[in-house]
């Protein structure tokens, strides 16, 4: 029953991470960048193992009932690994990262990734907590990796404090759960007792911290702004996706929210998250902060699928997670290129980007439009699925349908609001003249790694937007056979 072989990818990744730390000691600083290559190669190996594995039908439990491996977990693991690879690719050309700690950096990233992989497989609160802590602790360090940068330090500290706070709440929730159920294993429960409901709420808030859901989102802008941009990219996608995976598993499959009378609560959280993210983003003039709030809002959209609780919603969560990775990584890659070149992440850095580097400006516009959910880009398909799942659930719910319709309505309204600030960036890129420096505005130089990232993500956004059937078929396949 141990089925340790199911954890081959995670084990391999952890071992390779340890190996990286050792290699760091052996390699000279000049060659330290080689470690990034080793790191992404390690991720590639793990990805291969993950993709190689799911040839079984159904879900296979392991470690007693600690974890389960099924198509959905493999899907999220693959997506998370792809995030890690892309983040490592973006780290390669990123100057502020000290070469001396390349090994530490990439090893931490791999550990964090391994934590996410554990998380999406977990069916026991103990493993959930440990995995979360693995992610968090690695992330705290990664966020503060630019030691000379005060902003980075500030963000890391805030992130850490908030993390400690939310861990405490989650542990409290777990203890309540244990008190009510006599086990930490997540399983279907009868009518909700007050203690159990409270336990689930606190556990949810604990997850909310990692997924950047309101009201646990306050750390997001500061940490994102301060963290090295590749880390921001990573943090904005990987933990969120992994958390959404475990949220979907917990609140849609193991302990359905509808059974706990938590649907309204979750819906309110989703609405709050979307609204907070989008409305505050309007005021941001730092693009990293703006995208940070945007990522909060995006978490709210994904939450809609979990609230709906039907098959369409689950598929929507998977679909939007994959699509969100593509468009958000792409957008952050452009932000990194522009920010590094300009030395600032302010909106003004984007002035006249179309005249400095038209391809990058166009690509950025595509990502932003996709984030805003404009057809025929991938973001539209994802949002469509999520909103459709809410409507579907509303039709099925009967008397309690109002909350679903309200949810869909708020989602649509928020999409409208989001267009405003996304288009603000487009406006700066296309309609404002470049800032005049001495010797004219220099053309934007974009390195091969960033171009590679942009190409991959752009291809995904366009392809899944125009031919979503391929992704939908995959998602439908992954969403079946849940325990």
């Amino acid at each position, binding site marked *: 029953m141990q089925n340790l072989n199911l954890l081959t990818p995670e084990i391999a990744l952890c071992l390779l991470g340890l190996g990286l730390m050792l290699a760091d000691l052996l390699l000279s600083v000049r060659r330290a960048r080689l470690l990034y290559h080793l790191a992404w190669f390690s991720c590639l190996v793990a990805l291969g193992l993950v993709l190689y594995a799911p040839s079984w039908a159904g879900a296979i439990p392991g470690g007693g009932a600690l974890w389960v491996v099924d198509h959905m977990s493999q899907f999220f693991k693959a997506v998370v690994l792809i995030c890690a690879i892309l983040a490592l690719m973006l780290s390669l050309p990123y100057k502020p990262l000290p070469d001396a700690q390349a090994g530490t950096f990439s090893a931490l990233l791999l550990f964090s990734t391994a934590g996410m992989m554990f998380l999406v497989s977990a069916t026991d609160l103990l493993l959930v907590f440990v995995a979360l802590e693995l992610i968090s602790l690695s992330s705290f360090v990664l966020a503060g990796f630019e030691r000379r940068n005060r902003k980075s330090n500030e963000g890391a*500290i*805030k992130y850490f*404090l*908030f993390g400690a*706070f939310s861990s405490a*709440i989650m542990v409290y929730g777990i203890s309540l759960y244990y008190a009510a159920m006599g086990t930490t294993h997540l399983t279907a429960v009868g009518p909700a007792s*007050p203690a159990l*409901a*409270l336990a689930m*709420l606190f556990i949810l*808030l604990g997850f909310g911290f990692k997924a950047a859901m*309101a*009201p*646990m989102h*306050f*750390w997001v802008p*500061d940490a994102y702004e301060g963290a090295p941009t590749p880390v921001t990219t990573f943090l904005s996608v990987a933990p969120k996706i992994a958390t959404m995976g475990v949220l979907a598993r917990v609140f849609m499959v193991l302990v359905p929210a509808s059974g706990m009378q*938590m649907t*309204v*609560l979750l819906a*309110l*959280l989703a609405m*709050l998250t979307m*609204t*907070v993210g*989008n*409305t*505050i*983003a*309007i*005021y941001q003039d730092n693009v990293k902060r703006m995208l940070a709030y945007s990522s909060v809002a995006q978490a709210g959209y994904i939450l809609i699928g979990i609230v709906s609780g039907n098959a369409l919603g689950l598929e929507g969560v998977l679909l939007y997670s994959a699509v969100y990775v593509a468009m958000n990584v792409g957008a952050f890659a452009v932000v990194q290129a522009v920010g590094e070149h300009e030395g600032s992440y302010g909106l003004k850095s984007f002035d006249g980007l179309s005249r400095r580097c038209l391809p990058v400006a166009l690509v950025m516009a595509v990502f932003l439009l996709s984030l805003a959910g404009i057809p025929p880009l991938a973001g539209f398909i994802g949002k469509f699925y999520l909103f459709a799942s809410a409507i579907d659930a509303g039709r099925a719910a009967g008397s309690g349908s109002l909350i679903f319709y309200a949810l869909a309505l708020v989602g649509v*309204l928020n999409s*409208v*609001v989001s267009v*405003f600030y996304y288009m603000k960036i487009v406006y700066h890129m296309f309609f404002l003249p470049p800032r005049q420096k001495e010797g004219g505005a220099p053309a934007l130089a974009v390195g091969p790694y960033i171009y590679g990232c942009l190409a991959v993500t752009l291809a995904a956004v366009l392809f899944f937007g125009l031919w979503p059937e391929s992704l939908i078929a995959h998602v439908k396949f992954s969403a079946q056979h849940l325990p």
Partner: protein
Amino acid sequence: MLQHVYLIPLIPLAASLLILLGAKEDPRSPMPFLGIAATGWCLLQSIAIFYGAATGELSLPYGADWNWFSFGATAGGKPFLYDMPVGVLIDGSAAVMLVVVTLVSFLVQVYSLSYMRGDPRFKRYYAYLSFFTASMLGLVVSSNLLVTFSCWELVGFSSYLLIGFWFERPEPPYAAKKAFITTKLGDLGLYLALMLIFCQVGSFQIPQIREFVARGFMPAAVATAIGLGILCGAAGKSAQFPLFIWLPDAMEGPTPVSALIHAATMVAAGIYLVAKCYFIFAISPVAMETVAWIGAITALLAATMAVVSYDIKRVLAFSTVSQLGFMMCALGSWGFSAGLFHLTTHAAFKALLFLCAGSVIHAVHTNDMRQMGNLDKKMPITFFATLVGTFAIAGIPGFSGFFSKDMILERVFEHDPRLFVILAISACLTAFYMFRLVFMTFLGQERDLDRYLHAHESPWPMTVPLFVLMALAAFSGWLLDRGEIFTRLVNFQALPGIAPAHEAAHAPAYLTWYVTAFVFFAIYLAFRLYGGSNFREAESIKRRCAPVFNLLERRYYLDDIFLALVGLSDRAARLAFWIDSEVVDRFFVDGWGLLMLALARLCHLFDDNLIDRSVDATGGLSVSLGGTLRWIVRRGLVQEYLLWSAAVMSVLTLLTLPAQRYCLGASVGLGLLAILTLLLVRRPR
């Protein structure tokens, strides 16, 4: 020989296309000879067929069909798949028509070599002629009435092109238009008749239709309707009362064209069509009578109009109309072969007369007979040819017209004496106006010295056809009447059980000489009035009978009546226009527009006040909400973050446990505590 008869229309068609598209316009172009050669080949073929048929070597009728296309159709309430064939059907009348058409076409083309020399559109003229010949031959040989109808329209089109050939002058385009539209009016009837035939029979094939009629499947009433429709088409094409108004004006075209199309061939197409569908008329006495009376009326009216005309070509045109009336009347009086016989001889002598007229016009450059005179010495060949043609048309014994007209008169006398009287008067009038033409043109004294001095005999391409036609005009009647060759050849195959075609004449023999005597009297009268150099007596008669002359010169006001009808339709069009612009446009269209405008205003108001305001409100709400939310974390203090989190968490807890009062109290307390703490730490650092 007969199996390749389908080539007869196709070769002139190919020639026409070659001439039209294959060469540039050049006065010395050899292209006309291509057309002449094509027609010559057809002529030889036709003569061979005719000869074979006349001697009994070829058994007619011959038919061959090829499938063209199929379509689903319904006839007599039964749906079926009709395989539309295109084919040839050569019977006696077709064999005769083939010779007539190809011979006249050939001669006219030779004649035109000289007549049209120097014309800027010499080549195109020959292309049109070849095209006309092809269409006409197609009409003659087709076994399918729909194909016949198509060719019928194509000859009308060629006629249109050729009447308006000199389109720079004002009259020809007008005349062409008039001819086309008037003919079209008749075609309407023919078209309806064709549809009726198909509805009844389910086929366009003449043999099948004949079979259908022969078995007595066609009711007499339907046959009457079909017959009248065909008559309508024939009246348009063959210039019968009241649709003959276009033919005099069609003389605006080149004179050889008038000879070919408006004398010998195309105008005979109507007669030919009636003959082809004779079996339908055979079972409908009403249609038959109508044909006869229309023919008789046409013959008389046209003859009277010819008496007062001074235009040499117009006289011939009226004469043509009159003679066509003779043929029609003969057909309507069961004189099938008589009518076709007259068609044949008429083709020869009328073509001859037109070509002579062309020769005269070529010499003196005017159509007005009052400016001619005393040309017999200048143009002896033309004079002689005209004389032969006039003898033939007037029915001087021995000439061709005598035989055919005699046959008609006997037949009509047998059928209805009233018709006979009308036709006899017409025959006398014919002799009168034709000799009037001869006297005015060739005898007497020259009246226009200038024109007289310039007159000359025409060159050989114009005179050779005259000789050929002269011979035919003189002897064809005798040749074809000998041993009743013609009657045997084109005899109408009587339908079994229907009134037999009693062709044999039983009219008294003195009748012919009676009429001939009157004809000679008419000639004498013409000599008395027009034989001299001045026409004092004629003028005095004209003065005394002014109203009658006026009536005739105005062509019985038929043109005016038609114009009035056109005017009526013009009025109707104006009324329709008024309704359209004043009622439909102003009331419906504009009204609809105004309605839409009002609606649009309403929509605009709605849009402006409700939609836009709500959009603005959304924006404003978002902005203010964002501002508020940003304001609460404006200092970026992590303890504030945590407290706000705790506060929201408290509210959420409250929501989670609505039933549990103590928890509710605890949550409220916790929330209040959080907010309180927040307020406490608000003090800036």
